[in-house]
């Protein structure tokens, strides 16, 4: 290939005649090592979420494989780069030619070291920090609803999901969304799990059994919930954000000036936060 001599002279490291003058055996290629470190830490962070099971707090399980493959590929990239650094420091600067050449094709916005440092620190943070499942505070921020608005995933087919007592919170919501008349569900058995949420507009004696629903990742998690009619009129008998397993039957009730379904419980159990707190 044809190269102009001027571009050649810009790369003294490239002169094949004078290899020894380059750097010296003890000078480490810090920039490349920083890259390897950043790639490796990212991979480690993704592996941590994968193996620790926390990935479910961040992603829809359908896409877990993407993140898992990314963990593997990043690890391979880091290893390959490390190998390259070792080889380069041992022998010629063969790769330097290519690097400089393709650098001409590439215009960067951020300084190289700065980008690497940002990536590295984020990955270190991800390694230390354990993601938390969303709770009632986020539900308020995101506007909890018992009817899915138009911006939400529409049911692709209308099927009465299994037996009533097998329906999850989102199954119920989708069902009611398609056929909203609450009387239609009167006396059907209910068995759902969810966290406790007290909507401001509801009177004492009610709580919402809520779940977050994911279509892609935590960024689009949206809360849904079913009203639960309690026997007491005590304010907040169950702590906010605690998890409940509720069995009972559906009744019709009027909340927020609107007739809607509500659960009349026969049993309320406090449970641990499930490993996978979201529904899909």
């Amino acid at each position, binding site marked *: 290939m044809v*190269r*102009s001599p001027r571009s050649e002279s810009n790369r003294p490291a490239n002169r094949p005649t004078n290899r020894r003058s380059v750097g010296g055996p003890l000078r480490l290629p810090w920039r490349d090592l920083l890259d390897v470190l950043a790639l490796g830490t990212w991979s480690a962070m993704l592996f941590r*979420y994968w193996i620790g099971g926390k*990935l479910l707090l961040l992603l829809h399980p359908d896409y877990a494989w993407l993140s898992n493959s990314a963990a593997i590929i990043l690890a391979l990239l880091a290893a390959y780069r490390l190998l390259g650094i070792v080889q380069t420091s041992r022998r010629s600067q063969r790769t330097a030619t290519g690097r400089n050449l393709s650098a001409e094709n590439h*215009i960067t916005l*951020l300084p190289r070291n700065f980008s690497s440092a940002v990536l590295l620190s984020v990955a270190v943070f991800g390694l230390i920090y354990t993601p938390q*499942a969303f709770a009632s505070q986020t539900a308020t921020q995101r506007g909890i609803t018992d009817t899915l608005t138009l911006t939400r*995933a529409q049911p692709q087919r209308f099927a009465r999901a299994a037996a009533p007592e097998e329906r999850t919170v989102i199954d119920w919501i989708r069902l009611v969304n398609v056929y909203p008349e609450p009387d239609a569900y009167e006396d059907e058995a209910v068995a759902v799990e969810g966290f406790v949420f007290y909507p401001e507009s509801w009177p004492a004696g009610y709580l919402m059994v809520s779940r977050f629903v994911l279509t892609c990742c935590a960024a*689009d998690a949206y809360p849904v919930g079913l009203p639960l009619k309690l026997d007491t009129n005590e304010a907040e008998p169950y702590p906010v954000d605690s998890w409940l397993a509720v069995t009972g039957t559906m009744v019709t009730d009027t909340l927020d000036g609107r007739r809607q379904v509500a659960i009349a419980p026969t049993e309320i159990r406090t449970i641990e936060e499930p490993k996978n707190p979201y529904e899909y």
Partner: protein
Amino acid sequence: MVHLNTGFTLFLSLLVEAVPFLLIGVAFSSLLLFFVNEQQLVSVLPKNAFLGALVGSLMGVLFPVCECGNVPVARRLIVQGAPTAVSIGFLLAAPTINPVVFWATWVAFRGQPEVVFLRVICTLLIATSIGWVFSYQPDIGPFLQENVARSRFRDRPKRNLTGGSSNQPSLLQGGTFLQVAGGETLQLDTPAAQRLVANPVQAQSPVSKLQLVVDNMVRELRELGAVLVFGSAIAATVQVAVPRETILGLGQGMASSILAMMALATVVSICSTVDSFFALSFASTFTTGSLLAFLIFGPMIDLKNIGLLLTVFTGRAVFYLFALASLMSFALALAVNLYLG
């Protein structure tokens, strides 16, 4: 504290979802950069302005690059004499009209498939129209930065001389040569601009190509990853720190939501391979049209991209591109809000 936890979880979730797509994106762009020969591509492009713009807009399928990779490719196309319409169409549409971005958008907006298709259709519409408009300027020269324009003219006579064949031995070409080892020749008087013309890495052996692919991947990952980190941080902060009433007030307005999202797209400069996840975090509070505006306008013009564009085009041309793209994006998004939303 809850706020902080939500913010961090949101931030990590965006990153973890986006990084695989970023990896796929940079892998494709690195591979194709080294294995697709633009010189051959340019010779089969249609001459008709409208068709050229359309073909240019669709060429992203061959070059799945996001906006940081497509400017260098567009520059090579321009320098190699691709028609204006093709180059501009490619420049605007390639970051969106490509399989990786389509897949990522599909993953993010599975619940609202109309967003995915409208994104493609609107981008195609805008890029083709702007490419068509620009083709009325028969010579793109005045729009180009001086060094790019010069490299075009230096390139022209050579192309005529060699009859378009780039395989001609360099000894049959005029100039001053040095004989180097292995029977190779080194042309001493190659115009500096020729380095812009030829994709310089295509002449390398497969092994060193692979090495370059990896190098390029790491470099793009570093650069785009850092921008992605900032984008995710902004998205997460807006989600948890700005009161819901404020966001809803802005996000539910027919026009205000579109303007807000376009401003956000310009500032955030997030890579088109992963911008759908960013947009997704606003899906519950912003109108469909505004999300669409973000998804079509962001890949065409943003702060990062303007910097890149200015390395190829003059300020005036970039301003025209910006003005046309923003007005058309706004109009289309508003139409979606009014008639489809």
